[in-house]
């Protein structure tokens, strides 16, 4: 009995879509779960009715709406609401794909760095392009904090510029690493149960109660992490966008 905690992250092409240069573009299991996430969000948001007294599905849709809207208003102000569709899409996409990925035998889209990096770069360039388009060169004043003595200013500016360009790195790795580590830990602890049972027989199965309990606890934690990482991703997006909207912080 061999348990490979990495196997769950494999990308399996389901069919080929075409070629770009020498890259084969395939519809993979990752694509399938992206589609699942988009489908779930669409059903939740579109099939939930617009009754005056909301039902369960409509309540979930409206709570999601209000949750993201209030997050944007509190971090980026009323002007941030022009990015509502983007942030709502990001939050729902990450949250739903994370929650779907927690179900055993499914695939977690955000456990791949390339996906989280794609989303983080989307945010990065949105901030950069909108910030420059709206504020011109004044946007770069975010690199020059107020009230810093002249002699340390070059150092502070260097750090500010560096941290600005490292944002997409931390933004993407945070989500990726959380999902990856959580799923590996789950798989390892769940694997212990099977390994103990199959190798030691009855004693092993009895001894497997401990890792099983840990798996259950970890599973609950992972559900929290799945939601929390989506929230963290969304709120960081709001904070970065706030720099573009109000650069003179």
């Amino acid at each position, binding site marked *: 009995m061999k348990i490979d905690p990495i196997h769950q992250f494999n*990308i399996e092409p389901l069919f080929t879509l075409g070629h770009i240069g020498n*890259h084969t573009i395939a519809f993979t299991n990752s694509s399938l779960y*992206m589609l699942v996430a988009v489908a779930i*969000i669409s059903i939740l*948001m*579109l099939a939930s009715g*617009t009754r005056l007294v909301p039902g369960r599905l409509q309540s979930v849709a409206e709570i999601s*709406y209000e949750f993201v809207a209030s997050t944007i208003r509190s971090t980026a102000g009323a002007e941030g609401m022009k990015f509502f569709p983007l942030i709502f*899409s990001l939050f729902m996409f990450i949250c739903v794909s994370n929650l779907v990925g927690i179900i055993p035998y499914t695939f977690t889209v955000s456990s791949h760095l390339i996906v989280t990096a*794609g989303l983080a770069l989307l945010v990065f360039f949105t901030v950069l392009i909108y910030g420059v388009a709206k504020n011109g060169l004044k946007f770069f004043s975010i690199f020059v904090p107020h009230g810093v003595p002249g002699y340390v200013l070059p150092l502070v500016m260097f750090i500010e510029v560096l941290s600005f360009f490292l944002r997409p790195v931390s933004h993407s790795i945070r989500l990726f690493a959380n999902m990856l580590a959580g799923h590996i830990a789950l798989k390892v602890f769940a694997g212990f149960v099977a390994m103990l049972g199959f190798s030691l027989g009855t004693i092993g199965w009895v001894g497997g109660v401990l890792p099983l309990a840990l798996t259950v606890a970890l599973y609950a934690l992972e559900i929290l992490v799945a939601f929390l990482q989506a929230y963290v991703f969304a709120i960081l997006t709001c904070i970065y966008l706030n720099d573009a909207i109000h650069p003179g912080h």
Partner: protein
Amino acid sequence: MAESHGGAKGPAAGAHTEADGGHHGGGFPPFESSTFASQLVSLAIFFVVLYVIVSKLALPKVGGAIEARQNKIEGDLTEAQALKDQSEAALKAYESELASARTRAQAIGNESRDKANAQADAERKALEGQLAAKLAEAEKTIASTRTTAMSNVRGIAADAAGQIVQQLTGVIPDAASVNAAVDASLKG
């Protein structure tokens, strides 16, 4: 991106990792660069689709529902406030009407009571006058009757005394002495 693992696509890489167990070198799927292009293309397609659905359909719909509810609640509250004001005004009007009616009723009551009192006084006075007159007349009658009766009593007493003396003595007494005796006993 994909040059290092040219031919090693997903399934091959997957089989490779499975066979090797925890081999983390080039077999670690998240760092398998040959899959990057496929994932990025899928992500771009599905995220754009999601963005379009969210921005064009989902958010206007859900936001509209929330706004419609908000408007409905505000409208209902305004209406309720208007109705409340109306009922308060009606209550105030009712109370002032009631107060004025009460004052009027009190005035009417006082007036009619005074009138009734005055009338009753007048009637009583008239009645008292009548009664006093009747009383005086009756007293006069009584007095005259008594005088008459008293004179009759003296005659009867004198007759009776003459008869008694005659029965007892067989002598008819003389009238003057009988009268004197009767007068004396009446006075006595």
